[in-house]
């Protein structure tokens, strides 16, 4: 039994429902990330085995797409929009401020696994630029001064 056995069993259940396995790699990876939260090597290898493709191909696809994570994410996901509309309204400074406060770079997760900081490209809420999303909740018209309050908000869940 490994750490991921229950999740792999759930994933197997999903793969069994597919009528054909051809071209289903991305579909299966989406499902796997949905179940596990990220894509550990063990899960990738298992998918390769089930879909009868080389593990290198699975790895190649996983690392090609930014949506797939090869490392676990923090409990709280903070994403700063770096789309152009937000960028020209100062979202770069906001990303820097979060980075400074959390002591992690963009794309990293804090050691206590409480926070992940990411950049996203345009959530389509340009009217509220610059925009930060925390666990899916959108904060609009954010200034560097708001970073403190946002972290306090999140702190309640941490």
């Amino acid at each position, binding site marked *: 039994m490994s750490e991921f056995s229950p999740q792999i069993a759930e994933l197997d259940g999903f793969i069994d429902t597919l009528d054909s396995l051809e*071209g*289903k*790699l*991305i*579909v299966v*990876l*989406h499902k796997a990330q949905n179940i596990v939260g990220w894509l550990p090597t063990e899960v990738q290898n298992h998918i390769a085995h089930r879909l009868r493709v080389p593990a290198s191909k699975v790895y*190649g*696809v996983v690392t*090609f*797409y*930014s*949506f*797939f994570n090869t490392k676990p994410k923090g409990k709280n996901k903070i994403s700063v929009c*770096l*789309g*152009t*509309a937000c*960028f*020209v*309204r100062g979202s770069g400074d906001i990303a820097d401020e979060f980075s400074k406060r959390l002591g992690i770079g963009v794309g990293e997760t804090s050691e206590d696994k409480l926070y992940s900081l990411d950049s*996203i*490209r*345009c*959530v*389509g*809420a*340009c*009217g*509220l*630029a610059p*925009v930060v999303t925390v666990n899916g909740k*959108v904060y*609009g018209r954010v200034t560097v001064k708001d970073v403190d309050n946002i972290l306090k908000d999140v702190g309640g869940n941490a």
Partner: protein
Amino acid sequence: MSKIKSLDELKNLQQSVQGATELRVKFEQGSGKYRKHILVCGGTGCMSSESNEIHAKIQEELNSRGLGEQIQVIKTGCFGFCEQGPIVKVFPDDIFYVKVTLNDVNELIESVDKSETIERLLYHTPETNEPVTRHDQIPFYKSQQRIALRNCGIINPEDINDYISLGGYQALGKALTEISREDVIKLIKDSGLRGRGGAGVSTGFKWEMAYRSDGDKKYVICNADEGDPGAFMDRSILEGDPNSVLEAMAICGYAIGSNEGVIYIRAEYPLAVERLKIAIKQAEEKGLLGEGIFGTDFSFKVSLSLGAGAFVCGEETALMNSVQGLRGEPRMKPPFPAQAGLWNKPSNVNNVETWANIPQIIINGADWFKSIGTEKSAGTKVFALAGQINNVGLVEVPMGIPLRDIIYEVGGGVRGGKAFKAVQTGGPSGGCIPASQLDLKIDYDSLQSVGSMMGSGGMIVMDENDCMVNIAKYYLEFTVEESCGKCTPCRVGNRRLLEILEKITKGNGTEQDLQELKDLSEVIQDASLCALGQTAPNPVLSTLKYFYDEYLAHVRDKKCPSGKCVDLLKYIVDPEKCIGCSICAKNCPVSCISGELKGKYTIDSEKCVKCGVCFGKCPKKAIVRQ
């Protein structure tokens, strides 16, 4: 639910469900059940400012007041004026409320019940501060003409009957029962419709190529991988009017001889995915998708394929690889998708906005469409206005409208009364257009002539405080990150471009670097495999062309005129203005400011990290940024 077997049955259904939308389009109750409609915008922008909660509270209040049978509250797609969201509209009174909050709900319901207007929630024109009741009197909407966005913000996107009540699926019925496949293609060709996703290829021409290709199986593909940062028109169409895309894809399927459609959509658009799933299910239940549509032998099904966050997958051959579960790397062309596309079968790929135009062209004819816009760019285009502009939002205007009208009339001018510097069109593939080109009449060809492109229609306005070298660097960072790495000019060339730009913004650039930027850009344009690489240098070339002075200031004088490039900045204390209050010294995080109380303070440039704290804190504005 019974399936629709003929165009007449569809028209009968339209009659019977017409009451659902009569309040909203004819401003009368007609055969509808409700006497009032309250429309709440459920687009992403408004939802970010609690429009979901507002919708729920209105529903709850209506029920508790016993008005639930008289007044209906409907969640629609985006109505475009995101800057003023959340937007709520009241029909048949045709009132347009902006920036509505949860606290306004009670007053709103009372006013709707009594047919009154709440003046403070109306849009007020910035110049005269006059309240405006109807949306079409607001300058933002005056120059707009809605074809692709015709139903967005008017219908309930989760109810196919709303779409049918406004004539939905009649274009498909008409095509299947009255027009030959060849004539459908001719109609689209004659209309002059060009692809709205970027390159502007004739849609009819693409359909014809796919039609002429032999194959036992063909695919119709909708490109909904909207990746340009700052462009959100495709998402709004899918969220606000998903059936228009399904109907158009089925029309194309009939024309080119395909029975299967695939919508490739970003996983980052969960709401659009959800609404598409609902629309597909409802269309299947009504027999508008599936086997033997409209009683003919034409069958068509549509499935969704989720992207996984790769900008290059907006390129049609990369997109097809991704649908097949592979890395989204572009393929060599030829063969074109129309010859060997998805699973090596003939395929036709169009963008969401292109699809949304098709049903209207079938219904109103090619001449009608051609009469709008310019000679070579027929119809309208949806632009996403954003950046340093007053009215951020989605606008649909006829092709050929002067840039000045979009920025100043529709967009309401530059924020904070600052000077207009440039507008960036076409996303990372586009260019920056300077103030001297404001009278440019916008269409595919005019944008290319000034070194930019239509792209998907993002328009980001920049003001005097934006550094154009920094903007070029920003776009290059984007393309370097998103380059798939398959071909060398794009993978390596763009990285070198970025390195030169970084060197310049750090103050280490030379005039020779400017020449190298230009030369390298041209090589990348010529030698890259796909459009991503071929267009990636556009932001560099266009800023070099129009803002050469700014580049020169960076390399020759080591100054950033807009004060954005931190490494080129220097903070000093103006001794004339300094009163020796010591606020700057107390707030400096690196203690590089020294002096005596009531004396003159100085900044040690060696230690200064250029954080700008002193600049913001000085009560006498004695800190100067150079």
